[in-house]
């Protein structure tokens, strides 16, 4: 019965007798494979062309960042060079008072480390947490050349009574494992107490959270000032006749062509208390000699100089977006009855948002990580978190701490990026 139905025959014919996979090239090879072979060469060549860049990015970007992240939670300066005492810490619960066995292990490790000349590394690691202890380790190390005699506790206390300090032992316990979250805790002003609980660091050491906040606030402020200053200039650039807009563009780009140091120094000349602006104000009688404004070596100096330096990063994306906005939109709004302010607010401004978003993101991210300018004109109150990172890199040599701070900064920027993507959409970003 069913076989006589012509429709049924068509249906089985379509699904059964002519499967899709049977498509072949003219000489009988499967079509899919022929396509893969024909496009493989082009793909391989394309890959070879981007290979140098891929390698460059891997070597100069991905690997260092990975290393940085690793270093922020891994430091074996103590654990690797002090194996016996590290073992004692592992065997005893936190808060245990060091006993004779602990001092014996410490004495053996100190002797070994002194002979292996690694005692300095160990001292540096402990010095991160208890300033001044590096010399304790190196001095004890010199005495340890001949070895210590039991009882070890008395011998070590005799060498330096600081070895009895319980705080030192707590710090050594924290350093006895190579993988540690302590650097991150320190980066948010937290530490571990004797029982290993996370508590606030002592008040005089709480600096990082405040610095993160200051960095955030100042970066937002700088983003705002670059927007307020850059928006009209970008609009002017986009609407002026070509020749004059080119001249203006050169003025905008001039900061890019000048050394960062020169620009910052120029601001120092202008802003300092005996500087040009203050002299001018005194000369005009706006302020008197005693009332000279301090516009430098504080947050005002940082904001002024960084606004200037980051301005092009706001102007250029705004300009590139504004240039594409046809003037007839505003004209249309005006002819439809909008005042010039309404036309700007309802029609022009919303269309500049992709450029504004890109510029704001760019300026904010750059400001968050800025280092040279706050270091030069910021004084003590204008320092940002990046200056602290630089200090840990170059002065205290606590690279793990620097890495932890940098990782938090990186995380913050990524979160911001994610929020931006959710709110505005990263596709709407127009950089040029």
């Amino acid at each position, binding site marked *: 019965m069913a076989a006589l139905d012509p429709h049924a025959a068509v249906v089985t014919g379509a699904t059964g007798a002519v499967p899709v996979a049977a498509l072949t090239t003219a000489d009988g090879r499967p079509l899919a494979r022929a396509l893969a072979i024909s496009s493989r060469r082009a793909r391989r060549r394309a890959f070879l062309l981007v290979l140098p860049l891929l390698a460059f990015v891997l070597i100069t970007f991905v690997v260092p960042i990975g290393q940085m992240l690793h270093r922020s939670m891994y430091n074996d300066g103590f654990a690797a060079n002090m194996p016996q005492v590290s073992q004692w810490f592992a065997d005893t619960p936190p808060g245990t008072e060091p006993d004779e066995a602990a001092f014996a292990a410490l004495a053996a490790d100190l002797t070994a480390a002194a002979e292996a000349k690694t005692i300095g590394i160990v001292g540096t690691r402990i010095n991160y947490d208890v300033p001044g202890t590096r010399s304790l380790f190196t001095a004890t190390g010199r005495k340890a050349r001949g070895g210590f005699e039991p009882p070890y506790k008395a011998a070590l206390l005799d060498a330096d009574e600081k070895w009895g300090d319980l705080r030192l032992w707590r710090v050594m316990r924290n350093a006895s494992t190579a993988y540690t979250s302590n650097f991150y805790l320190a980066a948010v002003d937290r530490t571990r107490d004797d029982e290993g609980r996370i508590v606030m660091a002592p008040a005089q050491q709480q600096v990082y959270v405040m610095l993160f906040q200051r960095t955030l606030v100042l970066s937002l402020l700088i983003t705002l000032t670059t927007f307020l200053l850059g928006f009209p200039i970008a609009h002017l650039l986009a609407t002026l006749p070509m020749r004059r807009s080119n001249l203006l563009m050169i003025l905008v780009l001039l900061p890019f062509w000048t050394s960062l140091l020169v620009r910052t120094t120029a601001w120092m000349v202008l802003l300092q208390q005996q500087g040009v602006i203050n002299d001018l104000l005194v000369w005009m009688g706006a302020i008197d000699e005693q009332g000279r404004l301090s516009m430098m070596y504080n947050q005002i100096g940082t904001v002024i100089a960084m606004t200037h330096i980051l301005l092009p990063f706001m102007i250029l994306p705004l300009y590139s977006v504004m240039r594409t906005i046809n003037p*007839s939109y505003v004209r249309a709004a005006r002819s439809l*009855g909008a005042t010039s302010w309404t036309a700007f607010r309802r029609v022009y401004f919303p269309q500049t948002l992709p450029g504004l978003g890109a510029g704001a993101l760019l300026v904010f991210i750059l400001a968050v990580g800025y280092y040279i300018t706050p270091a030069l004109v910021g004084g003590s109150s204008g320092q940002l978190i990046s200056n602290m990172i630089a200090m840990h890199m170059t002065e205290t040599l606590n690279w793990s701490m620097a890495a932890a701070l940098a990782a938090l900064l990186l995380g913050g920027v990524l979160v911001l990026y994610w929020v931006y993507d959710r709110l505005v959409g990263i596709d709407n970003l127009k950089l040029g």
Partner: protein
Amino acid sequence: MTLPSGNDGFVVFDHVQKSYDGQTLVVKDLNLSIAKGEFLTMLGPSGSGKTTCLMMLAGFETATHGEIRLDGRNINDVPPHKRGIGMVFQNYALFPHMTVGENLAFPLEVRGVGKAERESRVVRALDMVQMGRFKSRRPAQLSGGQQQRIALARALVFDPKLILMDEPLGALDKQLREHMQYEIKALHNNLGITVVYVTHDQGEALTMSDRIAVFNDGRIQQLAPPAQLYEQPDNSFVAGFIGENNALPGVIEQLEGGKALVRLATGELIDATPVNVREVGQQTLVSIRPERVEFKPEMMPAGAHTIDAEVRDVIYMGDILRARMKVAGSDDFVMKFRNTLGQTRLDPGQHIRIGWNPQDARALDLV
């Protein structure tokens, strides 16, 4: 109460001049009076000043000299948003970040129209252009023709007294353009609004307008209804700009009784109607429309002068045939004739005698 002449129109340009650089005049002494409910087209090549005139009327450019009046009121110092003129732009200028509905509501919103009334007027305007279904779309999701309708609806939604259109159909393909021409014309007839339409497309101008102002070099060359403009051009520019035209240079040989005899460079004589020639011996350009040229003696008026023409080629265009001929030493004389059953065939190289009704040949000034 009597008004001075030229002051009785709905829109009046009174001795308007415009200069951008202080060196040259883009608009030279424009006088134009547009009646209420009229569809007036400003037609001209680019740079002729027609768009500048429109922008001065809309308020985006200020007149350097002269007065522009709308409904009897001088609007020289009225800012654009207070003029109450609807405008349709060349690129439509639909706000890309707003939906179609929001675009239409915009002029009502800035006028403080209440939400409920806004809603009903938006729907009414959208229905007027058959776009009711697209209220929540964004402009980018619409085709060119649809955007055009929305732009039209947006310009109409606040019931303006006057609508300006700046080459509104320039971006559409031919078929859609012709369709929209009828729709705009129908809207104009139904609503009875005044329209000032700017275009450089003479076909568009001829189809839609009540009157056409032909612009060139900052002046109105001729202001006339379409048929008059096409059939009785006032000068050589208008004759050449509107439609296809044959221009034969010559010298006036005889001038009497509204008829002129013109001697061509080859010595042949042709008939013409004098338009802006005044005396015998004056140089002239005789303008003849290709479809008014005859080559069959029975179609010409008795006693008409004929001249020799050598057929260069004949192009088959479907409804008509277009013959390019060598006449009076020039190679680009064109004759159009209907493609009827049994139409005489012309072959390249063939010599024929052509002539015309003297009314169809207009002796004009030199360009």
